[in-house]
């Protein structure tokens, strides 16, 4: 019941928002924020929610409308609720009603992706989650090109995913396999390779990795900040989530075989994104390239075959969700005030906007992996895991982007906030209450996860285990060992 509500509730309310008059901006915002908050509390209060199962298809293979929490999806759903809440609150402008509705539909569709326990259902929601983003892009952007680029890239991936799913269903007889005790290699080696290739292609485009990434900076630059906050924080995790929850249990040997290629792609993304972010002038594109770099690191972890790295990947996925959302919201606030994102034109805002500067700073610091904030916890677990698994050189090479990250993130922050006052920038007031409330939960998440990632880790501890074990599902609080 809970999980069905998490998926269908936002979609239904989102579509219903279109019934409101176009001018009812604040009402739409409030309704959407309340729905997002409700999904958050629903997930927090009912972590042991039972799966929802409904018979769906019998031929040519059995498929079920099967939704349920998993070791990774639980925290992603919570992150998504927080990100949607923040994004909705940060909305402004003439299209607020539409974008709020589209954000809710997006939340429902993505909940569907992360909660689906059936491959066919997963593929369905996978394509569904493209639509709201495409609609926002085509509605707000001045030129249609980024919208089509986003759609075509992701549809190509979606097509590969659908083909792979169909092939899996036909060969294995059922697609109701995510998180259940299906033996790896159920489809045989030849089919396995092709099906894995289909999934991997879709996931790599979605993540994205070098050289399939060029849709991302364009999309992120064109989307309104509240939407890109949600997209970058959660949608970009769909591919990595797919690797960890679908291909890892089902195609373990194929993943091992693909490791050299994937390590090469991951390292390429890691370095490429870092260097490109160092030179980029558009603030939002800097963060987009930094995402490319950070997600490359998670890709390394996903293919490491090492439990510690999986746990680090889980932490880093959530952490990246928090800090990229915070960064984009802060940058959106900057853009809204100063009407530019060009780092060479901005500067000196910290004096007038200390709270905005604080938000941007915390996001940047978490992104550059400052110890004590969320990014660091994930980073060190992943890298230590890689090293422990014997991948010494990938781990050592992955250290370089950490140094680069500190350079480009500080360049971003200082370029906007520090330096002499720029006279031709309009003087606007600091963060409003709504914007502050939007960013606050993200910042709180960053600090919480940085200090005590225990709950995420203890859930993720079952990722690498054989699928049968994933049924035990108990999120634990951070274990405070008592104090004298």
């Amino acid at each position, binding site marked *: 019941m809970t999980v069905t509500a998490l998926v269908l509730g936002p979609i239904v309310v989102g579509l219903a928002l279109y019934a409101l008059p176009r001018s009812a901006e604040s009402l739409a915002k409030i309704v959407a924020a309340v729905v997002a908050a409700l999904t958050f509390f629903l997930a927090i209060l009912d972590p042991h929610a039972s799966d929802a199962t409904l018979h769906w298809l019998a031929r040519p293979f059995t498929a079920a409308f099967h939704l349920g929490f998993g070791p990774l999806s639980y925290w992603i759903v919570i992150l998504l609720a927080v990100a949607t809440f923040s994004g909705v609150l940060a909305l402004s402008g003439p299209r607020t009603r539409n974008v709020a509705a589209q954000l809710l539909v997006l939340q429902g569709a993505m909940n569907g992706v992360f909660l689906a326990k059936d491959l066919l259902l997963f593929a369905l929601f996978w394509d569904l989650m493209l639509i709201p983003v495409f609609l926002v892009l085509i509605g707000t952007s001045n030129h249609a090109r980024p919208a089509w680029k986003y759609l075509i890239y992701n549809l190509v991936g979606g097509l590969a995913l659908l083909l792979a799913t169909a092939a899996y269903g036909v060969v294995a007889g059922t697609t109701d396999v995510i998180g259940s005790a299906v033996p790896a290699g159920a489809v045989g080696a030849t089919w396995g390779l092709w099906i894995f290739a289909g999934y991997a292609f879709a996931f790599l485009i979605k993540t994205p990795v070098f*050289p399939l*990434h*060029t849709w991302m*900076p364009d999309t992120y630059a064109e989307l309104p900040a509240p939407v890109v906050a949600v997209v970058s924080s959660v949608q970009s995790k769909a591919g990595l989530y797919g690797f960890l929850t679908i291909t890892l249990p089902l195609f373990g040997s194929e993943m091992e075989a693909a490791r050299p290629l994937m390590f090469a792609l991951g390292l390429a993304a890691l370095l*490429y994104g870092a*260097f*490109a*972010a*160092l*030179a*980029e002038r558009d603030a939002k594109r800097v963060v987009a*390239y930094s995402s490319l770099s950070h997600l490359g690191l998670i890709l390394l972890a996903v293919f490491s075959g090492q439990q510690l790295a999986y*746990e680090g990947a889980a932490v880093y996925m959530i952490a990246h969700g928090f800090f990229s959302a915070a960064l984009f919201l802060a940058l959106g606030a900057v853009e809204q005030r100063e009407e530019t994102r060009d780092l060479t034109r901005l500067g*000196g805002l*910290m*004096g007038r906007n200390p709270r905005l500067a604080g938000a941007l700073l915390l996001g940047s*610091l978490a992104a*550059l992996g*400052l*110890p*004590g904030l969320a990014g*660091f*916890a994930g980073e*060190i*677990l992943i*890298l*230590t895991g890689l*090293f*422990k698994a014997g991948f010494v050189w990938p*781990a*050592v090479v992955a*250290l370089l982007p*950490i*140094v*680069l990250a*500190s*350079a480009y993130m*500080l*360049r971003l922050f*200082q370029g906007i*906030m*520090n*330096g*002499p*006052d720029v006279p031709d920038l309009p003087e606007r007031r600091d963060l409003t209450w709504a914007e502050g409330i939007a960013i606050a939960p993200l910042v709180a998440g960053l600090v919480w996860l940085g*200090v*005590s*990632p*225990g709950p995420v*880790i*203890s859930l993720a*501890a079952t990722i690498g285990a054989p699928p049968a074990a994933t049924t035990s599902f108990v999120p634990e609080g*951070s*274990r*405070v*060992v*008592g*104090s*004298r």
Partner: protein
Amino acid sequence: MILELVWFLPLLGGVLLWAFGPQLRSMAGPVGSALVGVSFIATCSMWQPAASVGGYHVPLLDWLPGWSFGLQLDRLSLVWTLIITGVGFLIHVYSIGYMDGDRAFARFFAYLNFFVFAMLTLVLSDNFVGLLVGWGLVGLASYFLIGFWFHKPSAVAAARKAFVMNVVGDVGIMFAIFLIVAKVGATGYADAFGKVASFSGQELFLICLGLFIGCAAKSAQVPLHTWLPDAMEGPTPVSALIHAATMVTAGVYLIARCAPLWSASADARNLVGVIGALTALLGAILGCVQWDIKRILAYSTMSQIGYMIMGVGVGAFEGGVLHFLTHAFFKAQLFLTSGIIIHALHDEQDVRLMGGLRTRLPFAFVAMLVGVLAICGVPGFSGFFSKDAILYDTLLLGHPFLYAVGVVTAGITAYYMFRMLFVTFFGSYRGDVDPSELGIRHPELAGIAPAGHHAEEEEPHGHAPAWLMSGPVAVLIPFSILIGWLNFGGENSAWARFFNGFFPAPALNVATIPGLSETYSTLLVLLCVIVGFAIAYVRYALPPALADAVVRLRGETIRTPALLVNAYYFDAAYDYLLVRPARALGEWFDRVIDPLVIDGAVREVPISAQWLGHLFRSFQTGLVRAYALTIVIGVVCFVAYYAFAFAGGAR
């Protein structure tokens, strides 16, 4: 409970002052100082359990098995905690006077309190990851405070440089953590040190190397030292607390903490000893050509930390830690005194434009004199005991070459410190001399702020009572003189008894008995110091030198070798070898690869579809007879194929 309080109060202060700074206004300083003061008193009350064998330990939280965090107060961290909170408290009080009237008064104290918290995290952590957290957070605090005047481009750039170089160090420590976790499976100090025997020599060396990269970045050791002189862009109390007394000595702490690792790896000892000695020498040489009073002190800090690193690196742990202790007092005193001078001269930092301040600022002169005597190691002053301990232990442990470098450096130290003292306080006041007469042609290029540059931030001065600034310095003076006496009495000294059995027995590099007794060694060092002093005296303090000081200073300014003016070209080398290529590569990725190569290749897909369309279009002639011909040809081909296939089958 008390230990958590010690650790947590400064964080509380930092958050409070940051959040409610505008409301607190001028109360921010006293509140921030009081919290650190309480923290100091609480630390003192923990003396008994901390000084016992094994120390005092509080578990805090777990991430996953093997990755648990806790606070640990033992003898080593006790020394650091006392200095951080004690000297930190004095500098907080001093800052109330120094920063009075600054627009961001409360923000300054929020940062300072946050720094104290971060530094306590660093020294109180019981495991390597917690240490790394503290390591990163002090870097952040340092970044905040160097870039405190964030409207000033030079301060912003210096802050970024310091942060990025320190991240290089963080990465080094991360590397060491990888090795430790891969081998031990846990991050605690006790876990790692308990299994030192199971490490191979190469593994040990790599761990020590990783840790030392962290130390080199944080403690400004060659070649990662270039951020420290630039860090003087921060307010002077910051230079005193972070970039002299506490944060930059974190490297010394880490090596002393990891004494079991260093004792087991001769390669690591040699490497660290050499780097430490090199830093001591290079820093001291650069100190001789600086004119900015804070940069002189910055290079002397670098040089003195070189001594400490050399000491703990070769295994003279007690001496190295003692030098940290004495240095914390006398260097804080020197910096705070320079702050009094800078304050009195309305933000003038160039010693060439000072002179004759002995009569105008007598208290500052006395304080500076005591500090200089202490740093030079004049007998009876604290620096004498600690420097001597490091140098003679280095010789005892079989590093005669490092010993020689240390002795020479002691002489150079005496030269440049007395040079600063004489130029600043003797002769006549030169503040009204035209800078060009002193050879200062491009004040901006020389790194000297043009007059009134940050007037906006620091004006107006002088509302706070003068004792707020002179009081803390007065408290530091007796410590600068006396604290070294802890080490008086060889084996039975208070210092030796305090650390009895804490550090592993020193490992001899070469099992030889030095041909020099301690008395002769002391005399040798003293001789060098006297020579250094004498040269400085002749050049800067004799009556003829004082008479035509302007001409002489001009000549010296103009004739300084370019190599030294540019600090051995480290900055230029980094710029040309690392920064520019990285940026160029990024530009190439961003402006060429992405839009042209990748997107270009992707655009090839629709373009080739179009091309194929054109090709097929040309078949559509519209001529019915041509279509008929095509059909016929097709039929003929089919028939021919089957005819041949049938013929083949028949055969």
